[in-house]
């Protein structure tokens, strides 16, 4: 589904990613771990098409299309979704209103007809329950005045409505207490299906207790330095990132 080959990315002339190779198939959950500054968020942003990142080498193929040639909204249309580490507050834009515009934007991209309001609202009400988001937040301005947990739940709720084939969760656990973390993880687990892949970007192992990955990749200084299964995450939790970096130097 996703094939990242020798990806090099620079920000303002400084190389952040230095040759990432990663293949993700439908149904798989890949965790990308690494210390601060290792390039985790850059990878998420580049996948979603954020401006300010210069791809100097390499390619990203998503369902045989070059993702890098697509605008952010086209990527969403193709089925890419990024759950933001810091969801943006947008004063004056209604949550449901935005979501309906998004869903219909994606449907239009795919040549599908728009959903009627009745269909849309029914679906929204079912899904908001499933992710445990307070229904009252639906009609609020996007993320405005939401708690940290509510913001993250709102991201997962959007994911559930937009039904991407590749969901990238960027530090979804950051700033969450354990209850909120569990709730968010539960929401994600319900959305794990055979046709959908996840890339879970995280600094800490604790999220992976709840969203159990098929693969764990360790990112350090812009490169994947180790790939393993969920046991690798436990080792990292025990020993920290330093041993890997040291081992790598040797």
């Amino acid at each position, binding site marked *: 589904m996703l094939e990242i080959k020798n990806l090099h990315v620079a920000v303002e002339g400084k190389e952040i990613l230095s040759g990432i190779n990663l293949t993700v198939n439908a149904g798989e959950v890949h965790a990308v771990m690494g210390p601060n500054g290792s390039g985790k968020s850059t990878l998420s942003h580049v996948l*979603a*098409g*954020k*401006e300010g990142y210069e791809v100097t080498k390499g390619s990203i193929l998503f369902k045989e299309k070059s993702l890098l040639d697509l*605008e*952010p*909204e086209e*990527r*969403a*249309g193709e089925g890419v*979704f*990024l759950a*933001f580490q810091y*969801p*943006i507050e*947008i*004063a*004056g*834009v*209604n949550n*449901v*209103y*935005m*979501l*309906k*515009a*998004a*869903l*219909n*934007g*994606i449907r239009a*991209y795919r040549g599908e007809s728009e959903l009627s*309001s009745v269909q849309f*609202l029914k679906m929204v009400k079912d899904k908001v329950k499933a992710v445990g988001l307070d229904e009252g937040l*639906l*009609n609020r301005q996007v993320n405005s005045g939401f708690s940290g947990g509510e913001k993250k739940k709102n991201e997962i709720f*959007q994911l559930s409505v*937009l039904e991407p084939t590749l969901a990238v969760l960027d530090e979804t656990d950051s700033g969450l207490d354990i209850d909120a973390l569990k709730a968010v993880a539960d929401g994600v687990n319900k959305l794990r299906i055979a046709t959908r892949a996840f890339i879970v970007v995280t600094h800490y192992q604790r999220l992976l207790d709840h969203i159990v990955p098929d693969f764990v990749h360790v990112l350090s200084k812009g490169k994947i330095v180790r790939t393993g299964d969920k046991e690798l995450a436990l080792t990292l939790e025990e020993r920290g990132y330093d041993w890997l970096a040291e081992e790598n130097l040797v």
Partner: protein
Amino acid sequence: MTDVLSELLPPSEGRHSLSEPDWLQEKRQEAGRAVKELGFPNSGIETWKYTSLHRLKKVDFRPAEIADSTADTTVMPKIEIDSLKEKTVIFVNGFFRKDLGTYKNNVAGIKIEPLYNNTNMLEKNQEFISSYSDDAFAALNLAAFSDGISIEVDDNALISETIRLVFIGEHRDPLLRNIKNIIQLGQNAQLRLIEEYRSGIDDFGLTNVSTNIVLQKGATLNHHRLQNEAISSSQIAKIVASVEANASYNSDSIVLGGQLTRLEIDVALTGGLATCRLNGLFSGSGEQHIDHHTTVRHQVGDTHSEELYRGILDDKSRGVFNGKVIVEKDAQKITAKQASNNLLLSRTAEIDTKPELQIYADDVKCAHGATIGQLDSAALFYLRSRGISEQKSRALLIFAFAEEIIKTIPVDNLRSNLERRFIGHNEMSKLKSEAL
């Protein structure tokens, strides 16, 4: 070329009806002399520093005459007079058109007439309308006004009908339309008024309008002003309001159209607990120039004012906001809040925004803030990453910025029209109304 402002005065012979009282004739002549002395305001005058009249000077305006009031308004875009819910009074090229409006003088407690028929009203406000000081356009207005509205609301009359004034400009010739309005609310009276300016797409006229407002004790005027003229027309407008104790003046100034729009609002809070709220929303594109100058005079203690202006400027358009607050000596315990927020959508758009506080009392609460920004790129990316096109995402964010002002307008028709205008997509406005 009209290099000299006094060339815009009508010929002195036969310019006004013989029925005009002597005092008015004298005031007009006096004002005419002031126009000759003052001339066009230039950039050397502080309040005209950022607004150049050079484009206006290139036009050969002629003062509108009664014959111009019969211009065919059926060719006007988007004039749906019959479908307007509000009681409507219509002026064409500065003259009252009795045949077009839907307002009949049959609402209890309020009297609405063309000002020209109401010399009594003019006389009562003689001093007020003559205080043009060094304002050349106000002097020109007095010297040459053709007509305008006279509104009187009786003491204690709460008018539940919204009154809508529509001033239409439409002519092949570039007309100068001098309009004078006087609005007077008696004690504890209430009125909601929409004042709208429209013009035909080929109209190159200049509307020079002066409005005098008197709110007696405890009165409330909600005044929604909409400049929706074609971008070939221009307007210079002045509102002078006197707000007595316990009275409130609430004004929205929405400027969407016009090549050059200059709006001055000057409010005097003259009695305890007098309040005013001045809101503004302007949106410019192309080479539009939109200038708001507001002055709030806290003349006595315990008076309160609030101002929120939002500007959206695209292309090479230019905005000016100058908000002056004057707190007189001994006007203690007043509060004055002012905010000017501006969104620049292109590198070539420009805004000059300036708060100006003159405080001569010592126990006051005054706050002001001005912001100038671009569309939030993080928010734009967030929306696009969700599958919303760039164009729609921009429209959504612009709309959200404007909505802060629009949502406060309690007139359904006007609000939904503005929402449609700002969202830019019918589809999106449909979506909004449907959202839960």
